[in-house]
């Protein structure tokens, strides 16, 4: 069963690496496991391509057009990040910022995190979804504080408390959901929380309860998405954790959290039959985009900068989901994909850039192209891509979002315009001097692993000018599924 292997492999890897995590080949092992997972996912995807959506194990797990591409994306980015982390972590070790023990923790937790993500994506059970989200948090907390510096500890602590509290709200929401579902489906064991079942009877669910439930779920999972003003943990965690962790947090965790929000939005919208949830999402999205953009303006730390940029983009995606309708949903899904690809690649380059300059302060990073053209151009192109410059895919989704917004809700476009403009100015005026200009820093001891960067960027570029048919069909089907 492909689905089980997808879930089992990372867990297995976690156990293995808990043993051999400090071994010389741990990094390779880590990459290998991720690669195996990727292959398993590939089989799963083929299976779905052939057989269409599938349910498994008493309907507890399922793959439909909404989560299939997210699963694929997660596996892919997980793999490339593992590849990237090999030389990166080695350099960190040489610089004496990490030791073997910590590396073991890192590797096993990394796999555990992947496992949690897959569980969250694949489960059909809203309760299990919650459990998986919590697990994902817990597994990353120790990664954020991996360096054991004051800053990293503080970041991890805030991350833990804020997301913990948030997640608790989500649990209450889930309970309310169950409470309502019970009356529609009966409390017979496990079925009451199955999304597919709920979705089929969402018309009969009690609107008021679901309204309340949605608020709790939105605040809960929204905290993990990093929607303003619940976002405060995000920049700290991104800046202080090791770069691969920032990459997967930004590239994957946020997506999965948003996935949870949308799953519940579908139910609630179906039940209360109004645009209330949609409008909530739009407001949250706009607020996040705007605040994110203005936060960007004053950043000094490169990883913090791109952390805030994640907030901004999550805002745009949420906004798009809020608008609803086939095009906006399509755009949102596309944006999820390209954002995680681009953002992770940016974190890869940013990590190496800060290693070359031996600081995360952007004032200290100068003239990357003259030291290592690959890093420099990687960062430049990545930033341009994330700023929505065609022909990169981010532009495609922003194009659809903006045009749809202009048509459906014209009043939102000035705000979007401000957000995008400020974000552009803020990021680009920081990136340009980092990439261009003079520098006398020595090159890195290890050759940086930039293949992932350019693979990601190539994919993003492709999505800008050509979207494969299968992917487009998934997006469309998912957009239908989400409806709104």
């Amino acid at each position, binding site marked *: 069963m492909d689905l089980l292997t997808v879930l089992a492999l990372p867990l297995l890897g976690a156990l293995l690496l808990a043993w051999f995590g400090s071994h010389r080949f741990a990094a390779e092992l880590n990459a290998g496991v991720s690669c195996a997972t990727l292959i398993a996912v590939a089989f799963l995807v083929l299976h779905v391509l052939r057989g269409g959506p599938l349910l498994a194990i008493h309907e507890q797990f399922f793959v439909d057009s909404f989560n299939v591409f997210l699963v694929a994306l997660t596996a892919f980015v997980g793999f490339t990040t593992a590849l990237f982390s090999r030389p990166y972590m080695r350099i960190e070790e040489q610089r004496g910022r990490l030791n073997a023990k910590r590396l073991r923790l890192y590797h096993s937790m990394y796999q555990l995190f992947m496992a949690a993500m897959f569980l969250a994506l694949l489960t059909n059970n809203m309760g299990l979804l919650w459990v998986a989200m919590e697990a994902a948090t817990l597994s990353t907390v120790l990664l954020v504080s991996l360096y054991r510096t004051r800053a990293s500890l503080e970041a991890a*602590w*805030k991350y833990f*408390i*804020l997301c913990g*509290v948030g997640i608790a*709200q989500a649990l209450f929401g889930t309970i309310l959901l169950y409470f309502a579902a019970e009356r529609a489906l009966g409390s017979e064991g496990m079925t009451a929380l199955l999304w597919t079942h709920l979705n089929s009877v969402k018309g009969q669910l009690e609107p008021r309860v679901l*309204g*309340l439930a949605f*608020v709790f779920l*939105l*605040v809960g999972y929204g*905290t993990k998405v990093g929607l303003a*003003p*619940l976002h*405060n*943990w995000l*920049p700290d965690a991104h800046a202080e954790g090791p770069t691969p962790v920032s990459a997967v947090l930004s590239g994957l965790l946020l997506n999965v959290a948003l996935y949870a929000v949308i799953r519940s939005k579908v139910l609630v919208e179906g039940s209360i039959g109004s645009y*209330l949830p949609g409008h*909530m999402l739009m407001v949250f999205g706009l607020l996040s985009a705007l*605040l994110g953009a*203005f*936060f960007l*303006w*004053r950043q000094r730390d490169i990883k913090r900068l791109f952390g805030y940029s994640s907030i901004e983009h999550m805002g745009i995606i949420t906004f798009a989901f809020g608008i609803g*309708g*086939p*095009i906006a949903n399509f755009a949102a899904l596309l944006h999820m994909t390209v954002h995680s690809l681009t953002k992770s690649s940016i974190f890869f380059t940013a990590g190496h850039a800060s290693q070359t300059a031996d600081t995360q302060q952007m004032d200290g990073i100068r003239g990357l192209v003259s030291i290592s053209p690959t890093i420099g151009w990687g960062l430049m192109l990545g930033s*341009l891509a994330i*700023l929505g*410059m*065609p*022909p990169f895919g981010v*532009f*495609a989704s922003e*194009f*659809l979002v*903006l*045009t*749809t*917004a*202009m*048509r459906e809700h014209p009043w939102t*476009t000035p705000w979007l*315009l401000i957000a995008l*403009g*400020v974000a*552009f*100015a803020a990021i*680009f*005026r920081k990136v*340009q001097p980092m990439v*261009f*200009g*003079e520098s006398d820093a020595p090159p890195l001891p290890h050759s940086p692993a930039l293949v992932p960067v350019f693979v990601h960027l190539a994919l993003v570029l492709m999505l*800008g*000018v*050509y*979207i494969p048919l299968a992917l487009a069909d998934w*997006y*469309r089907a998912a957009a239908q599924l989400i409806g709104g």
Partner: protein
Amino acid sequence: MLIAPIDRSLTNHCLTLLLLLVAAWIALGLIGLLRPHSVRFVAHVVFPLGSITCLAFGALAALFLVSGHLAEVMTLPLGLPNLPFHIRLDPLSGFFLLLLGLVAAGISTFAAGYFRSGQGTAPGLLCLQYHVFLASMALVVLADDAYFFMVAWETMALSSYFLVTAQHRIPEIRRAGFLYLLMAHMGALCILLSFGVLQGGRWQFTFDTMRGAPLSPFWASAAFLLALIGFGAKAGLVPLHVWLPEAHPAAPSPVSALMSGLMLKTAIYGILRVAFDLLHVRFWWWGVLTLGVGLFSSLFGAIFAAVQTDMKRLLAYSSIENIGIIFTGIGLAILFAACGLPLFAALALTAALVHSLNHSLFKSLLFLATGSVLHATNQRSLGKLGGLIRRMPWVATLALLGTLAIAGLPPLNGFVSEWLLLQSFLFTPQIPHPFLSMLIPLGAALVALTAALAAYVMVKFYGIIFLGQHREPSLVHAHDADWMERIGLAWLALGCVVIGVMPQFALRAAGTVTADLLGRTVNLTSPFWWIAPVTPKQASYSGLVFLAGIAGVLVLAFGMVRILAHGRIRRTAPWDCGYPWQTSRMQDTAEGFGQPVRHMFGTFFRMQRELPTPTDAEPHYRVQVEDRLWRTLYLPIARGVQRLADWIGLLQGGRLAVYLLYSFLTLIALLVFVL
């Protein structure tokens, strides 16, 4: 039409062939990457091939125009699902493609001689960016759906940004590049929103659906205004012009030529496409607005050009002026069209189109000339040049043609378009609107003023660079341009002369466009050597007679003088009212030449001066002229963003309890909301 027998089978495939040539450009760029660090390979192989491609490109476009086909469409298997890339070749795009091909041919030829190996971007990479830039400009003009248009548009901005920052080690150039890309991006967003208004609903981003889409006056106006802002930002309309005088001087000269000569024209194309093709209604106040902005930009550009001391900045401001003139023509055309006077609209539009063509010819010519000067002297400041006509006769002669053309003097091309514009102004009293019919004619006076100021500016430009005595001793070693550069310059100069002497060709090319957009053309019946846009009785002009007349009398007079008198010449020191010892520092400086304009239009500038006092040991005079808009418009915006960012930054106070409070309050608020 012009060429009676044309090979139909060829004209039927214009679009395909054009696309192939675009692909060829990109291929050439990639070839350049094969040997990224070999200047000789890039300069002697890639760029010449590129210029040949450009020639073919222009020829094809011309062929399409004369073939009289209306439109060819095509879709590429790329793009978004349900929205493949649509491509369309119609007279409007054909005209701009012609312009692109002709001018780019000259520039590429020049570039072949120009690019040297320096620090900064490697020549191979430069070559890639250069050809991608060309290709994206062509695609902008060819695109037939909003998405493809935007992709090409932004690719154009991006590639040109990289070209501008080729010398990225210099901080000012980085600043210029940043400002440029920022403005370009904001403009692009406005254009995008304008398309958002124009679109016909789900997945309907093709221009065809937009043409049909019915819009309420409000939304139509919104679309037009957004487009005007967006394209205006690219074209450098005041007050969106600030990036232009920074970016154009920063770039290598062939790139400045491309940007000023061609990229700005894509903005013209865009506004024409939206105003005359996509929008099915036009209101008179759109025209008045465009006209006003255009007139102001042209005057503004001319005045600022007059006080510049850097030769490339001077040309950049003169670009703003010419763009202003073009927009004036467009505004008139919209106004006439809205008032139901299609013939006069056609006249004004013709003027705008022909001026676009002319401007791209002589402006690129002059930018390239400054490039040669730059190579010969490493000087951009007018204060350190002078007397180069004796060191680099080729460049000086060809630049003289460009100077006369851009100064709007007969019998060269610049005069033709300005003459047409004035002609169309003559009919503004017929506008059925009491105030407009009295106010708009005064615009003609402004155009005349601008044209004369342009002449002033160009006398300054040419006189200070090429005439007089060397202001720096080092200039003695200045060398003339090499033969590739000369060919490039000569090609463009030839264009200026031909269009000036036989404007009928340009008018016919523009005629196909106006016929397509407005259903009318100006009077094209007169023979090729003179034009009479409305009726011969009303007004006519013949550049050929001018040239022949002047030349004939010149030769006759020369002959007569030689026959009747003698040709004896004594070389002496200059008589300057008998003032004994002349030095080169006694000539007019650039600042000095700008003085009357500074004096008369002082309100436009923000001036800082250091005047010498009688007791100075070594008296010196410095004047610095700034754009008021920069301090009154842009810096306040930047400061506002900064302040806002500071306030918002306080949200992230670092205290966990406060963060918890945020989420708690959010929770409560939402609960209250759903209650």
